[in-house]
């Protein structure tokens, strides 16, 4: 009897994992629960259904592996014409495609829908750091690259690393292999290392540092957006400090390549509705995202540029041949 009960409970637990795969749209988050892609799927999927942009709920599937490559390969090879499928993407997706990290698959093998929010890139230092402005920091790197270690939440060659290199490149420092960068497990880890004095600067997304900004442990010396961010008006952009770099970690979606144009446009429309909804605005604010809406063709054009630049930097860095 009790065994039976256990069996039923087991069934219930497993059933939960699989429930609803039928009669629903599917959003693949190519990572374990808890990351940005998971957030994208869960939040956008939920809002899409809540505001009536889709008539069926959006079921989230987590498919971690290969830094998003497994999910990418699955979409390209096995579900290339599935009109009910969307997949979460971000700057990391574009970076890895540019670096050929998805086993030879390329950006034109899926269709990118758009981005509807972005985490602004930033450089932060501990509160007692001698570097007061972005230029202080850049000068220090220029005069002695070994004196500054940057920490970020992505592996070497990842987007957090590349942001630093883009910034230094625009400032005229191109000896990028001399730049010291350590990749730690998350943005929070990087900040912990900086507060502890183990590294001199943190490269990451603004959302990662917000709590430490309020507590006064960290200072953000530049954000990589075209203009100052509402709500963080006292943080200068890199551009106004003379370093013309824009680098944001956008949050968006892609769909399989072989769906029809009408199906693609329907998804773009649905994403637009989410972008314009109050629910999404609230979610963006709660998660430190800045408005960044690029949809359909506009987004595909933007992505081509980004991928080109990242590929070039990665070649210089030696991450790809």
């Amino acid at each position, binding site marked *: 009897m009790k065994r039976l009960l256990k069996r039923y409970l087991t069934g219930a637990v497993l059933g939960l994992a699989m429930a609803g795969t039928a009669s629903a749209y599917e959003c693949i988050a190519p990572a374990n629960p808890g990351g940005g892609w998971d957030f994208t799927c869960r939040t956008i999927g939920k809002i899409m259904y809540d505001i009536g942009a889709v008539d069926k709920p959006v079921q989230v599937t987590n498919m971690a592996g290969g830094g998003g490559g497994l999910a990418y390969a699955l979409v390209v090879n096995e579900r290339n014409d599935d009109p009910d499928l969307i997949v979460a993407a971000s700057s990391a997706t574009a970076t890895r495609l540019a670096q050929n990290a998805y086993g030879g698959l390329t950006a034109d093998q899926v269709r990118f829908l758009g981005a509807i929010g972005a985490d602004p890139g930033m450089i932060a230092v501990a509160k007692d750091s001698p570097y007061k402005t972005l230029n202080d920091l850049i000068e220090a790197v220029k005069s002695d690259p070994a004196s500054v270690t940057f920490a970020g939440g992505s592996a070497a060659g990842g987007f957090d690393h590349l942001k630093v290199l883009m910034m230094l490149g625009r400032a005229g420092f191109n000896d990028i292999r001399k730049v010291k960068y350590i990749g730690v497990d998350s943005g929070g880890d990087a900040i*912990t290392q900086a507060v502890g004095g183990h590294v001199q600067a943190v490269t990451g997304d603004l959302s990662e540092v917000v709590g430490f900004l309020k507590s006064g442990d960290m200072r953000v010396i530049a954000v990589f957006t075209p203009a100052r961010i509402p709500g963080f008006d006292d943080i200068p952009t890199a551009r106004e400090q003379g370093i013309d770099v824009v680098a944001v970690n956008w949050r968006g979606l892609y769909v399989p390549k072989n769906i029809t144009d009408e199906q693609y446009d329907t998804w773009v429309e649905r994403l637009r509705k989410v972008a314009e909804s109050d629910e999404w605005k609230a979610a963006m604010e709660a998660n430190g995202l800045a408005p960044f809406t690029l949809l359909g063709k506009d987004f595909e054009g933007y992505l081509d540029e980004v991928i080109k630049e990242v590929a070039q930097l990665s070649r210089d860095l030696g991450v790809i041949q």
Partner: protein
Amino acid sequence: METLSLLADGFAIALTPGNLMLAMIGCVLGTIIGALPGLGPSNGVAILIPLAFSLGLDATAALVLMTAVYYGAMYGGRISSILLNIPGDEPALMTTLDGYPMARAGRAGDALVLSGVASFVGAFLATIGLMLLAPWLARIAFRFGPAEYFALYILAFSTLGGIASGNQAKALIATCIGLGIAMIGLDNATGMPRFTFGNLHMMDGIDFLVAIVGLFAVTEVFVFIESHGRESALGVRLGRIVIPVKDIILAFPSMLRSTVIGFIAGILPGAGASLGSFLSYMGEKAMVKDNSRFGKGDPRGVAAPEAGNNAAAGGALVPMLTLGVPGSGTTAVLLALLMTLNITPGPTLFTDRPDVVWGLIASLLIANVVLLVLNVPLVKLFVKILMVPPWVLLPGVTMISFVGIYSLSGSSFDLLLMIGFGVLGYFFRKLDVPTVPIILGILLGNNMEDSLRRAMVISGGDWTYLFSSPIAIGLWIAAVLGFVAPFFLRGLLKRPQAITD
């Protein structure tokens, strides 16, 4: 005094009938999830997040449910460790060392009750620690840079030789195999893939759950088939189930010491529950006077890792809440849950959202008591599992493991890998090579290597950086003592015996 009134507020938030109900459900579900190999606390919590949303739970209710599942899974992991010699999740790995021998000796009930009490002590004290000291403790994490983490991992590995009571060389070989497997995947310091053979499945490395289920569960099936079940605890006659007061009293100091070690390991974002239970076990083995029964069913060897890993689970909430840095996979999921509830953990959380923090702490305390109450009487039910005919039970458990692993990545590659590990484990069993060090190598190897590489980047290749802080030096000294001391102690302890023989 202020803490008490805040806690009272927390209880007022958490102690509604609805929330108590959720805590009960969460504890039961969590225990089951924890006990099933292949389903750990992190996928347990992750699976239930959508449920929390679809039920439309508010922030506190969702947290009550999730933390109950989290602690429940930490309690539940020990059950399959003790009964089947298959860790239900990675922190329960160490519990197999003494728990399973106890079960084979017909003391499964004692082991379960004892480990339940140890879990309670560890988790309860850790929650108190979290409550009183969290903002201050978070500062400890700042002191740990790459050099300190590297020394900490060296300390862990230096004690590994003593893990297998028999042949140290085999334990060393096993550790090296684990470290080798840990190398597979993307190299964090250069961004280049290593040993992946161009296979995308290998890019993120080998998931340790795949290795655990393969080396333990699948191997167990092979051995079972070969021996027709003779070498198994299954079918062991059970004594009457009473509360083993004597064992609890004997192991109580071990629980307290392990709680401290586990809690500290939990606080450090780079360490976590697995390291906590491992260090607790090895520390206890080094500290007690007579450790000859360790590995053969010593009650203290059951109590120490369980107190340690549950304390680490509580400790891991400290950096998650105060720094926004998850110390483990499960806290990463909880962090995500908080974010989707529009709560951003960080240094200001305790002042900005006291309702959430104290509601959470109160629900942790509630979950703990519920789990103790559930677990001790439920032991009878769990032990009955051993009476299920093994030819039904083992394939069933294996099947569930397959489903659990498949739910991780949704790829059949992991299942094949798991069978591969099972075959490997079978041969290791034949060669008498312990499998626990392999898992620890996989679990900790990556972090150890990353710490060293980061330290070398920061220092520009200057190795003296590794000894540049008092904490690092202290850990190195402990590591050297931990590695060398056993040799001398063995000489002192064993030689007289040899003469009397």
